């Protein structure tokens, strides 16, 4: 170990890793002290410390409703896309029907198509259907973006599931429905939960589609942040960003917990 530590490869690895941390993680983390700043404007480093921006965040109706809207949209999106994504995964892994690979490509396309293109397309249609500025429209849009994550996670679980277990359940007297509820679903549950958490995150910090589909009356937190940063540059947005980051980190930690709890087959 001590020899390889000095090898050129190792040095290169450490250098690249260091650069990555510097450019990715540091910009994210300097937001945190900025939210505790005593300054009236967004600066780094903060000249002193105060909790006034957190107080403002928790009392300002614009921020609190934005938070509630985002949380609602993300939660409903997680539920809708988990149900649909799990069903899609079952169809893709187990089903045999014509046009399967086309269906697969279509479901996964939101991962590849630029979000701005999706956003403009959805905006044009949703305006006609009159579902912009509503939780329904945003949930529908975010679900389309989140379903691929659910499907990929669940499909992985299904592919690694020992088919003998389902045959054993049938042999022991369980019909297709009870085989799914008692054996298949509990065993793919880690994948389903992971997908649900990723779906929540997909919606939670989504801003591009949300800018198009929200109105002044109905804004999500990222959109509210975007609007505020463009107008007033007070450190509340840093406090809000820290809170958003905290939620995201918590959800990611949950993903790890779910993965660790998965029953060893």
């Amino acid at each position, binding site marked *: 170990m001590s020899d390889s530590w000095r090898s050129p490869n190792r040095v290169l690895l450490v250098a690249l890793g260091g650069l990555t941390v510097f450019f990715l993680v540091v910009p994210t983390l300097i937001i945190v002290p900025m939210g505790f700043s005593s300054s009236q404007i967004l600066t780094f480093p903060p000249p002193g410390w105060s909790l006034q921006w957190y107080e403002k965040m928790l009392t300002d109706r614009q921020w609190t409703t934005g938070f509630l809207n985002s949380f609602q949209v993300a939660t409903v999106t997680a539920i809708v896309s988990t149900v649909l994504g799990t069903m899609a995964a079952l169809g893709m892994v187990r089903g045999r029907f014509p046009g399967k690979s086309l269906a697969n490509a279509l479901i996964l396309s939101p991962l590849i198509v630029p979000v701005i293109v999706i956003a403009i397309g959805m905006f044009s249609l949703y305006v006609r259907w009159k579902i912009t500025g509503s939780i329904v429209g945003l949930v529908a849009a975010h679900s389309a973006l989140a379903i691929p994550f659910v499907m990929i996670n669940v499909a992985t679980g299904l592919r690694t599931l020992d088919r*003998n277990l389902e045959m054993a*359940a049938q*042999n022991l007297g369980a019909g297709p429905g009870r085989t799914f509820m008692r054996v298949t679903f509990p065993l793919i549950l880690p994948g389903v939960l992971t997908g649900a958490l990723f779906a929540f995150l997909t919606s939670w910090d989504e801003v591009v589609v949300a800018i198009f589909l929200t109105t002044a009356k109905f804004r999500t937190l990222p959109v509210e942040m975007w609007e505020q940063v463009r107008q007033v540059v007070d450190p509340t947005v840093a406090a809000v960003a820290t809170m958003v980051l905290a939620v995201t980190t918590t959800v990611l930690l949950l993903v790890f917990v779910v993965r660790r709890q998965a029953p060893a087959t």
Partner: protein
Amino acid sequence: MSATSRPVGEAGQRPALVLRGLTKHYGGVPAVAGLDLEVRRGEFVTLLGPSGSGKTTTLRMIAGFTLQTGGTIEIDGVDMSRVPPYRRDVGMIFQNYALFPHMTAAQNIAFPLEMRRVPRSEIKRRVADALALVKLTGFGERYPRQLSGGQQQRVAFARAVVFGPRLLLMDEPLGALDKKLREALQLEVMHFSRQLGATVIYVTHDQEEALVMSDRIAIFRDGRIEQLGTGEDLYNRPVSLFVADFIGESNILRGDFTGNGDGGWLTRGSWRWQVGSASMAGREIADGAAAWVIRPEHLRVESSGAALSDGRNAIDADVKEVLYLGATRKIELTLPDGQTAVGRESAEAGGIWRSGDRVRLSWAITDGVVVADG
């Protein structure tokens, strides 16, 4: 060692399983080609054969996981050909046990009872009984991953029998275990299923396992049953070279057969052997290519000059190798035309023969069996 003392259904009783003309094609290729089999209640029947001979496909058709292309499956007198697997009431033990990893041993065993809506209190009692049967009382709260391979196997057995299935199917359930454990579990599985009087269909490619455990063995070849009989039948009276070769070690002496009504003659080059009627095993063989199947223990290795006693046949051979195996010595021999043969002698004899010795092999005209060649 074959378990002939098991209580087996009376001849007049309805058979536990009847397969008639069972066929399975995969894209035109027959995996099982018109199989007929009757299994009596309480019988332990092994399907034995090389991989790809159709034995596992047959088992999966009986369980209902694979739909047959043709033929019928009757279990306890009921036609099950089109019945889905969850209504067939047969227990199955899978090669990897297929225990549900998210359930404890007790929950695994309770599963088939819950599916049958057995009252909770009765489930509790029957799970406890099943755990006691497989000697795992006190292990009910363990998850499969907390159990050893042998214990998992026993949980799988308990789960497959707890609901009183009409048939017990086992798909190479001991295949994944090491030799010592496998031998111990062979006896256990036999013991447990005998205790329950269960009708067992057992799939394996291990001929020793088949001989130890079965009442009858069905030798599979190319989707058909080549021979069905007790271990002794198959060992002493194989119907073909395939069966002779598959069960135990055997010497195959090929030649030309000429029948004379009661036995006949087998000739090979300058050698001419008399075939006693006992070696015909009561079967007719057409004149032409045939082979004498002789087990190593029936082959006597003698010095080449010794006088040949009456009622014995002989052939010359060279000793290639003498292998010490503990209780016996295995003598590997080369026949004049280059084919190999195997003899055995007691290790106590002191090892008369050495590699390179010219010897004579002899056997009684009533030993072994003559079968058609090809």
